[in-house]
């Protein structure tokens, strides 16, 4: 039953896109900026693990912990030192700034860690489970499990906690948030921190599966597509968009032809953009003028 195998592999592949899409949407909701350097931030976080291990001899847990912390600080730095000072400039300037951040990270890692792919430690011992002919790897199980945990945690945080609600509120209406006592600057800084911590988590899930190289961040292109599929404003939409994209890619490639895989996958994307400009989960943008 190849269809079951396609689903078993399509979902974890899509989950990788979902994680990227989630953070791109989060940052975009808060700051209106599409962060084109986000994929490279993931790559950077993955290299931090490798650097901690190979250069400083840190054990895996410490390497991961330091990657998460440094990545978070780096996100804060991006916001405070680069994007906050230019927040009043045209959006294009800010978007180009994110591109520049991405390029600097990518080429910086290429220069410092070399252009060749790096082996990345597996978080879970590599194992393959054979469920009556459908093969599932431990890495994929871990990726999906952690993605589910992150999604649930984010959902609870945003829906239930006061600070989560404050973030949602500030994203929707910054002025409204500030007059109820929410520091919008702190909210945006925390968005960058959350997104950067998730970049590190994604990196740890992704790198053993998709191979760490300076160009690993290219996966963000798929993340953007997933975000568009999901409507670009909705966090659940980003998750579903990513999984759908993963499933569309695997099944289209298998049932039609591998050469037509992208034609079909991007065809679906263009169709969504044309016929459902709000995406599958997007909300109508009714901003008061």
């Amino acid at each position, binding site marked *: 039953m190849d269809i079951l195998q396609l689903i078993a592999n399509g979902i974890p592949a899509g989950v990788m896109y979902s994680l990227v899409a989630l953070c791109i949407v989060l940052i975009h909701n808060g700051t209106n900026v599409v962060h084109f350097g986000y994929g490279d931030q993931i790559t950077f976080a993955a290299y931090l693990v490798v650097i901690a291990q190979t250069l400083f001899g840190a054990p895996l847990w410490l390497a991961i912990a330091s990657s998460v912390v440094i990545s978070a600080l780096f996100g804060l730095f991006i916001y405070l030192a680069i994007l906050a000072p230019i927040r009043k400039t045209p959006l294009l300037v800010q978007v180009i700034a994110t591109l520049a951040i991405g390029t600097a990270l990518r080429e910086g890692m290429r220069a410092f860690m070399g252009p060749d792919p790096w082996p990345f430690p597996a978080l879970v011992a590599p194992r393959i489970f054979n469920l009556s002919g459908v093969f599932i790897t431990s890495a994929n199980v871990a990726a999906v499990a952690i993605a589910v945990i992150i999604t649930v945690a984010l959902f609870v945080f945003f829906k239930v906690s*006061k600070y989560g*609600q*404050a973030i*949602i*509120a500030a994203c*929707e*209406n910054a*002025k*409204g*948030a*500030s*007059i*109820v*006592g*929410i*520091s*919008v600057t702190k909210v945006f800084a925390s968005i960058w921190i959350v997104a950067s911590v998730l970049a590190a988590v994604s990196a740890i899930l992704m790198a053993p599966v998709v191979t760490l190289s300076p160009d690993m961040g290219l996966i963000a292109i798929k993340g953007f597509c997933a975000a568009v599929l999901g409507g670009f404003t909705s966090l659940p939409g980003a998750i579903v968009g990513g999984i759908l994209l993963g499933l569309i890619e695997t099944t289209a490639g298998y049932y039609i032809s591998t050469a037509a895989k992208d034609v079909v996958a991007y065809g679906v994307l263009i169709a969504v953009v044309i016929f459902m400009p709000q995406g599958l989960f997007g*909300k109508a943008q*009714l901003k*008061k003028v």
Partner: protein
Amino acid sequence: MLELKNLNAGYGAVQVLNNVSLTVPDRSVVTLLGANGAGKSTTLNTIAGLIKAWSGSIDYRGKACAGVAPHSLVRRGIALVAEQRELFLNMTVIENLMLGAFTRDDKAEVLQSLEQVFDMFPRLAERRSQNTRTLSGGEQQMLAIGRGLMSRPSLLLLDEPSLGIAPILVQEIFAQVRKINQQGVAVLVVEQNASVAMDVATYGYVMENGSISIEGPVETLKADPRIQEAYLGDGSH
């Protein structure tokens, strides 16, 4: 007491406020009247910290407020109910109200305040789980006021609460403003609808082209022929 002295402010290079001085004593209701574009909203927004004062002073209860970020002013007891209401339209009524209490950590008392708001505006209680976008204009105004009250302010800045609302609801809202004041909250209300504002307020200021032109107790203002002609008259202005 809120005290503005010789306040100058504006947008970009355009000056709107010109040496504005006014006072709102604690527990009082003061109204700021004037035609559209006179600078009333700019005054409130400057007090709330949304617009930076160019010069002059804003003191609240003896502490300088000019240059303080809007979210910090909420902690000092100043709540703005903005002209555009600035609600979170994609969130529910109750979520909006709870965000109004963002600066408070006393969970039990927050829930008490919530019940008070619902008592004050029973329509909001009925629609508590509804998306804010689906509320009528009057209900949104009630929610904006309710959200402002959730921070338990000592000074409420009300910007044109009657704007775009059915007359019957205007009466209801102003009745509640009176009640709010009776609980000890000072109110500075900006209105184009002078008669309804002067029914609630004890002292009034009239603004023209960014400056205060007339001020006095409401009874005096009501008798002033200039005000009768310009702002009361047949209701058209």
